[in-house]
């Protein structure tokens, strides 16, 4: 915590190779970003693009067989290669995570009070009674009705939205510096989604946390984060201020993703636009741009080597060599 401008989390050239049954798979390549205290960052992309693997790499929760290269620094301290025992002291304490599936993220055999109090007992020196009081206060803060009465209830006695509130309370117990929310609302009803996202946004602002929000939902990203990164095939294809990216999309994939969103007021029978082709197999990535096979404006040099990041605005980078075409008025095929 040298000065306010030093990044809290700094990721440089992160690479993750997973050992799969189909051979080594490069799940993440050359991901770099920095996050200052209190900033929010969104990671968007479709399934298998490396969003969750990036999050797990930050948490140090990848399987032992995964090979991690590059650097992850928390407050200047290197995390890559940190022994598990040291990582255990950070997890839940300085970096926390909210998971996608609230129905399975809680242990059915323990009361919710026990599960929320657990990180406190583990990372801070409080007594069991204090931890219990703190757990009740947290559950109350995340909007669980009747927290003091229901603290000894078991997870199955709660609804999905309530359970997600409980997992948020768990993640926030030790006042972490960084909160990673991995698709926190994907498993919930749309009406509950908004409530949970509002709650997370309130808590992030209230406690001055940094947040990394992972989602495949452009709407969720647009409303909740200051900066965003679009991932595809394990690489960041576009990154920048959320507003800047939404006003001037540079990468053909981002544009395709935006066109594929469902729209209100569309005429009945209108088909959803899709991006032609399928996501490349991570074990068998093409040499050049990972999106080239599905891109309307790809040419031979796109397939030759992975394109470098091109600056198209203030802190707005696009990993595409044809931004002159893609960012021309109207974009591609719009």
């Amino acid at each position, binding site marked *: 915590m040298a000065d306010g401008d030093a990044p809290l989390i700094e990721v440089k050239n992160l690479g993750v190779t997973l050992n799969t049954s189909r051979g080594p798979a490069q799940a993440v390549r050359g991901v770099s970003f920095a996050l200052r205290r209190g900033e929010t960052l969104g990671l968007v992309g479709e399934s298998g693009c490396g969003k969750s693997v990036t999050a797990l790499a930050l948490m140090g929760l990848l399987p032992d067989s995964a090979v991690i290269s590059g650097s992850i620094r928390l407050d200047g301290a290197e995390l890559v290669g940190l022994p598990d025992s040291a990582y255990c002291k950070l997890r839940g304490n300085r970096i926390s995570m909210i998971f996608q599936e609230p129905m399975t993220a*809680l242990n059915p*055999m323990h009361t919710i009070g026990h599960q929320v109090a657990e990180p406190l007992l583990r990372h801070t020196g409080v007594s069991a009674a204090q931890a219990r009081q703190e757990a009740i206060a947290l559950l109350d803060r995340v909007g669980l009705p009747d927290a003091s009465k*229901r603290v000894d209830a078991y997870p199955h006695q709660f609804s999905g939205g309530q359970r997600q509130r409980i997992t948020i309370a768990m993640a926030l117990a030790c006042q972490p510096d960084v909160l990673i929310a991995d698709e926190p609302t994907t498993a919930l009803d749309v009406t509950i989604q908004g409530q949970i996202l509002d709650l997370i946004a309130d808590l992030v602002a209230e406690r001055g946390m940094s947040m990394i929000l992972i989602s495949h939902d452009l709407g969720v990203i647009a409303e909740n984060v200051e900066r965003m990164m679009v991932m595809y095939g394990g690489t960041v294809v576009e990154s920048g201020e959320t507003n800047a990216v939404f006003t001037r999309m540079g990468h053909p994939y981002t544009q395709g993703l935006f066109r594929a969103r469902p729209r209100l007021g569309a005429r009945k029978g209108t088909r959803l636009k899709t991006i032609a082709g399928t996501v490349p197999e991570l074990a068998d990535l093409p040499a050049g741009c990972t999106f080239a096979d599905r891109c309307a404006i790809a040419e031979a040099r796109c397939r030759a080597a992975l394109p470098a990041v091109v600056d198209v605005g203030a802190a707005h980078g696009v990993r595409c060599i044809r931004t002159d075409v893609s960012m021309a008025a109207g974009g591609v095929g719009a």
Partner: protein
Amino acid sequence: MPSSTRASRWPTCERAADRIRRHRGNRTGRAAATGFWRRALRHRSFVLGAVLSLLVLGAALLSLVWTPWSAYDIDVASKLHPPSAAHWLGTDVLGRDIVSLLLVGARSTIMVGVIAVGIGLSFGVGLGLIAAARKGWTEELIMRMSDFTFAFPAVLSAIMLAAVAGPGMVTSITAIGIFQIPTFVRVTRGSANAIWAREFVLAARAAGKGSFRITIEHVLPNILSILIVQATIQFALAILAEAALSYLGLGTQPPQPSWGRMLNDAQTLLFQSPMLAVYPGAAIAIAVLGLNLLGDGLRDLLDPRLARER
């Protein structure tokens, strides 16, 4: 319906509703521990299992202070008596009182079951949990070792042990116990692996817990019901294995009575006095049935998801 009756019914309803409300209030909060016993007494198979198991335990305890006759005195003159006032279930081929034999036999049955299953549980569950938590070559080593042990039947390992340590109850208990380890290793490791793959374990790791604490706090409680049921099955198998080993002269040594030995003694007299086989057989059946019901009941009662008040 006269109006007076209806009027008198309403307060009853009110009181019932009140009772229900108070009842619900108890569900959360510190009343959970007393709730366990209240639920336990309502669980039919748990109660039946507990009664049968306590019957066997009671028989063993009773035999320590009192038996109708001595279980060791041979009286060949009064052999193979039918049931009478003096010998409630008759006598065996050596003139020993069947009731006394059954009472004393319960002791060896319980001892064999408890100790052998204890050996299997403590080593097997420990190794299984380590295998699931550690993965990699540790898991491989533990599983291959348990395969190796599994390859030798209990009888064979008992014979090997007897050759070294001499036959007897300790030998047979040890052999049965060792034979049970790989079963527990496999069951534990298989179910523990399934728990390790669950998201709440990932969440626990994200909360900063190490593998030891996750094993104790998350994995073990979630596989406990499987282990309890497995233990009751293994208890039954241990009783049967003890009977087989006693038959080979490797188990309980005469004159110490055991249900397994009684059963095997009765085998040669099956046509002459079939009831001699029925008594110890029924005793074994009661013990095994009682334990299975008890295990089933415990599994239901220990699982908070099934803990519904009716």
